[in-house]
């Protein structure tokens, strides 16, 4: 078969912070690098990370220590984070920040000229002591500034961009990965991008849930690609949720709204948190509030024509409090819910925000698989950023550690690929069957006729994940969810798109994305059901306690339904391991 092929030293899939940091490292070293991005790179989801980036610089407090940062990150991860990876990230954080500074990232500064640092939840001095100011920022646009700085630098370093190209699948070879099969969205042209190293930096997949803060592009494309290549995903049961996103939109209403006296009600007007948590009520921790809301919805006390949300009541606070103490909430609510909170309650629902799990990697971002209980490195494949699970976030991520994760491990991927190429990493040649396999998804959508639509299947998928595998998880409900998912998976196989044209066929891209959402959802469902404990962001109603004896391990899912495990690394190189402690 006559297939166009282009060769690069490295192909990076994804133009967000992790991908651009990796490509920059490689392009600057003189390697021939291609970045494929389905949207223009500066429209990547990194732009939404407004909070900042952690590094123990000690600029505001006079002193800080990467070991304290490491301690906070391990505690935050509820001990599921790999201590060698967390050590690497926290230790390399300061130099990574200074590199960004030298590239021209406009960090906010102190009067003395040093980079300003703010306080953020979970950051302490001296192993759990007083709060420390560790978060660097560029005003409230850190992600945006990072993305633009990196993009400009990449252009200067002559990285080649394939913008508005979609990576459909990895192309396998006898040993490892040979490259990716990519589709030019504008022309419909298909090209095999062959590479010594392929780096996945495809971000998160919040779109598997009905309500998410994730942009529409976050469809877990790297997850689908990895699973279809027969490789595993790790810790996919760990998703961060926020209790109050605007129903039908996903835009967050700050938790401060409940702090100021707002409360949640069900369709009977009942303030239900009084029932679940008589003492703290609406000020209970995130998990408890989110789960209680989901129980109300599941048990038929949700509001609206479909009973699929609850209401956040603020009008009793009065105009002055709302305008003064909760600035912007009124505009948000009017814009995204069509509701004026001075008069009516806001429809809200637990909303997915961030995935801690992903593609398992070493600290050098090399993708791993497991065979007979042993880690094996997949030749020529790397992953970094939210799509990777290195694992620095474990069961829960600390604020302002995600921007750090993407630059530290994007850089690590670049450094390792450089070294490997120097040491002779070559190209791998796929068989014609490997090429066929990488085209099979596209061929299916091109050929299927008269099936159900992508919209119908995606909406059902998101509903199942929200209701049965979201914040309220019990074996019983997940079993129901499994049955629905399996049926839906069958229906997806015969689903079809009406538009079969080549030029700018976005419905075909959305169909390919749906395949990736389905793979990601199944990984989440299997591992959420498997892990019979509660840890970090994974809360099992039927197993409310953390169980270190049986579950201090990473879980792995393969697309044939096989589940395996890997030990958590508790052997940092330069410091004593951080010992297990109960959650406070």
């Amino acid at each position, binding site marked *: 078969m006559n297939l166009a092929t282009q060769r690069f030293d490295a192909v990076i899939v994804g133009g967000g912070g992790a991908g651009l940091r990796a490509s920059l490292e490689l392009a600057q070293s003189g390697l021939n690098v291609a970045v494929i991005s389905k*949207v223009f790179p500066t429209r990547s*989801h990194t*732009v939404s990370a407004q909070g900042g980036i952690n590094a123990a610089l000690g600029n505001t407090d006079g002193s800080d220590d990467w070991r304290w940062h490491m301690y906070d990150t391990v505690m935050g991860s509820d001990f599921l984070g790999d201590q060698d990876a967390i050590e690497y990230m926290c230790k390399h954080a300061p130099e990574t920040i200074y590199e960004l500074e030298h590239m021209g990232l406009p960090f906010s500064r102190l009067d003395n000229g040093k980079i300003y640092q703010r306080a953020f939840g979970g950051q302490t001095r001296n192993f759990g002591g007083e709060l420390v100011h560790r978060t660097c920022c560029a005003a409230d646009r850190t992600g945006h500034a990072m993305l633009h700085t990196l993009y400009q630098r990449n252009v200067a370093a002559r990285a080649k961009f394939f913008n508005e190209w979609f990576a459909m699948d990895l192309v396998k070879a006898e040993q490892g990965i040979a490259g990716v099969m990519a589709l030019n969205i504008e022309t419909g042209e298909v090209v095999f991008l062959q590479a010594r190293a392929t780096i996945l930096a495809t971000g998160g997949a919040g779109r598997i849930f009905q309500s998410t803060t994730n942009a*529409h592009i976050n469809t877990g494309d790297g997850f689908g690609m990895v699973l279809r290549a027969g490789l595993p995903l790790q810790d996919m049961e760990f998703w961060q949720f926020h209790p109050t996103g605007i129903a039908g*939109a996903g835009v967050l209403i700050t938790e401060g709204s409940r702090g100021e006296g707002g409360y949640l009600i069900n369709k009977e007007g009942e303030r239900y948190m009084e029932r679940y948590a008589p003492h703290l009520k609406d000020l209970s921790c995130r998990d408890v509030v989110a789960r209680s809301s989901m129980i109300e919805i599941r048990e038929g006390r949700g509001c609206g024509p479909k009973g699929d949300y609850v209401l956040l009541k603020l009008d009793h606070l009065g105009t002055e409090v709302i305008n003064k103490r909760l600035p*912007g909430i009124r505009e948000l609510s009017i*814009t*995204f819910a069509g509701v004026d909170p001075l008069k*009516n309650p806001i429809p809200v629902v637990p909303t997915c925000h961030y995935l801690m799990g992903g593609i398992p990697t070493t600290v050098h971002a090399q993708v791993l698989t497991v065979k007979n209980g042993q880690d094996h490195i997949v030749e020529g494949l790397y992953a970094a950023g939210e799509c990777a699970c290195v694992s620095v976030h474990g069961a829960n991520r600390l604020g302002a550690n995600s921007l750090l994760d993407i630059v530290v491990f994007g850089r690590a991927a670049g450094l390792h690929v450089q070294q490997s190429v120097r040491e002779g990493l070559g190209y791998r040649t796929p068989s014609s069957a490997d090429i066929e396999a990488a085209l099979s998804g596209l061929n299916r959508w091109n050929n299927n006729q008269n099936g159900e639509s992508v919209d119908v299947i995606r909406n059902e998928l998101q509903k199942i994940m929200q209701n049965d595998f979201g914040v309220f998880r019990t074996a019983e409900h997940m079993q129901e969810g499994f049955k629905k998912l399996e049926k839906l998976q069958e229906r997806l196989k015969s689903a079809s798109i009406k538009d079969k044209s080549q*030029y700018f066929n976005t419905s075909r891209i959305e169909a390919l994305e749906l395949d990736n959402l389905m793979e990601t959802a199944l990984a989440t469902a299997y591992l959420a059901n498997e892990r019979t404990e509660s840890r970090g962001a994974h809360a099992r109603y039927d197993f409310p306690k953390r169980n270190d004896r049986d579950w201090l391990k990473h879980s792995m899912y393969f697309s044939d339904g096989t589940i395996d495990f890997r030990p958590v690394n508790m052997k940092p190189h330069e410091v004593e391991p951080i010992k297990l402690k109960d959650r406070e």
Partner: protein
Amino acid sequence: MSKFISSRLSWACRRGMLELDLLLGNFLHEAFETLSPYDQKLFIELLEMNDQDLFLWLTGKEVNNNHYLNGIIKKIRYHAEHRHSIKTF
């Protein structure tokens, strides 16, 4: 509007921020065709702006009455606030 143009524009409404996906995407699908050719041209130009600026303008956090795109920004904001016509609680 040809299918090619409409697909192209709807892809250009895919942004790095959910808020922009919603504001731009809803406007494109629900209001774009009713605009004058001049306003359509402004909308297409608006899509070339960066996400951070779009976010501040379209959520009203920053207003620049003299900017040549201010008119189309106002139309998008007005549309967002009035598109939820049926309320059922």
